[in-house]
């Protein structure tokens, strides 16, 4: 019996296998498509795309830490017009789904981006990156359940394509944000984006990254935190959850599927080994066969999440 690896993310978007390339770690697929077979990953989640082109932040933009890396790229991207008019047509050459990651400072920017992309072929859905500072309110849209719901509902109203909302882990109650965006019409949830971190340049007596010194932490170090976030989200919603954070191989992917994810994305590990996602997708099929399972969802742990005094 061949296991069925496909996952329905919503609004007819079924990906062939549950392994995606995470936003910002695979560009728009053009470089990676020369290194790996794009047809063997489930989906490409593109670099965050904004209404207008962005040049990005001043360097240094990346800094390694023990088992992780910090980034402060500053959403460098060519702007949504280039993606819709030029890139989208090129996406059609790949079998994998292409979900455009959309970012903005205001709800209107998200809506405009999605409107512009909605005409383009080759785009299968949207992943709303709501972890960027809201220029109007000073706080990320993703840090407040109501704001998160507002942007989700606004985008939902203008597209019939699959809308995935990508959550920030830097919140008090990620389950509340997840619930809010589910109610507002999200088809699926990606969890999680990077954690706010800092690295110090001891000799210079300042952070390595410029200005605030803050960056987004990704890579193996965040895995235990991301798993906890995925379990919390899983307990709060009924829509598909895409687990992200520190996945470097099949074992990590299994951990997320057990914790409650329906699919996963590989981020930083792709930098280190571009074939990571492909290896995981291939490995999952083999693993399920080995266990006599027919789909990934059978791996899931059924939690009875409840408050638990720690320490």
């Amino acid at each position, binding site marked *: 019996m061949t296991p069925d690896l496909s996952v329905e993310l919503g609004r007819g978007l079924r990906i062939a296998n549950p392994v995606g390339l995470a936003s*910002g*770690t*695979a*560009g728009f697929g053009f*470089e*990676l498509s*020369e*290194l790996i077979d794009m047809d063997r990953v489930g989906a490409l989640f593109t*670099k965050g795309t904004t209404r207008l082109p962005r*040049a*990005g*932040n*001043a*360097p*240094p*933009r*990346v*800094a*390694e830490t023990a*088992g*992780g*890396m910090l*980034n402060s*790229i500053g959403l*460098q991207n060519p702007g949504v017009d280039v993606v819709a008019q030029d890139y989208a047509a090129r996406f059609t050459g790949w079998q994998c789904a292409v979900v455009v990651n959309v970012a903005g400072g205001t709800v209107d920017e998200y809506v405009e981006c999605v409107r512009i992309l909605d005409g383009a072929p080759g785009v299968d859905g949207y992943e709303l990156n709501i972890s960027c500072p809201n220029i109007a309110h000073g706080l990320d849209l993703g840090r407040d359940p109501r704001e998160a719901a507002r942007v989700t509902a606004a985008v939902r109203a203008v597209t019939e394509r699959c809308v995935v909302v990508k959550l920030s882990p830097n919140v008090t109650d990620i389950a509340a944000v997840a619930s809010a965006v589910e109610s507002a019409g999200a088809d699926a949830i990606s969890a999680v984006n990077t954690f706010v971190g800092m690295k110090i*340049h*001891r*000799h*210079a007596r*300042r952070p*390595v990254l*410029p200005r605030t010194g803050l960056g987004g932490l990704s*890579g*193996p170090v965040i895995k235990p935190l991301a798993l906890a976030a995925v379990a919390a989200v899983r307990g709060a919603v009924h829509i598909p959850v895409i687990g992200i954070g520190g996945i*470097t191989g099949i074992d990590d992917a299994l951990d997320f599927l057990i914790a409650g994810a329906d699919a996963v994305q590989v981020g*930083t*590990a*792709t*930098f*280190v*080994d*571009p*074939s990571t996602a492909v290896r995981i997708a291939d490995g999952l099929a083999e693993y399920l066969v080995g266990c006599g399972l027919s789909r990934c969802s059978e791996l899931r742990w059924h939690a009875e999440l409840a408050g638990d005094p720690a320490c």
Partner: protein
Amino acid sequence: MSGSLRDVRDERGEVTAVDRFGGGMVEVSVRLPHLAATALPGQFAQIRSGDSFSPLLRRPFSVAWTDGDSASFVLAPVGVGTRLLAALRPGDPLTALGPLGTGFTVGVRAQRSLCVSGGLGCAPFPLLVRALRRQGRDVTVVSGAARSTLLYPAERFRRGDREVRVIELTVDGSAGTPGLVTAAVPERIDAATAVYACGPNPMLAALARTLDGCATLPPLAEVSLEAPMGCGYGTCLGCALPVEGAGGVPAWALCCRQGPVMQIGAVAWDELMKLPPAHVA
């Protein structure tokens, strides 16, 4: 703007030789047939020892030499990654993604070539010197280091080609002429039709200033720059370097695609030197 990635492969090979020089500098040769066959002077590979994710990221290293199936890298233990690489022994596995980046221009303008090497910036020159010599160019290498033990052996620039001139300088005067490598440039710049430089970014900035002060400038002047890298192949956008943009507005170029080799005039040197230090040295 930047070469294709069509030739790039992720190759795993065995270390075949480890040559140890003074001051911890090491030349590691690895059986990497694809890289050896395809790497152009100034290109680099993203290296890790084996398949481990620790340290997390790969490290970029210039392809220093190729010989048959073998590619060589020159490095010294400056941090966690290079310490692991410097400890490699013949038979150990090494993984290399490459060839990556835009290398040096080995064109007609390189008739009389001046190679300026600072410290570990020596790494791309053996391959470049060979390529220049194969086209019949006249080659002078100015090689500088903090002290004699950190000088890359002159013979390694020449690789048996006695026509290649190597001029050595050390900051502490323990070998060759005392002084900074840039000091040896002005007197040779008139004769040169091409200048190639590699070394720490501050050295390259100093070279840019030196050239600014020279009467005649060679028609070709290229530098190989460094930036901390996430991926090495253009997706993370982490390796931005400031370049002269349209209308004086500084713009960013990716060290791993448009670079590491850039025209010296294309780099926004003032911006570059204003950046906070990229890594804990």
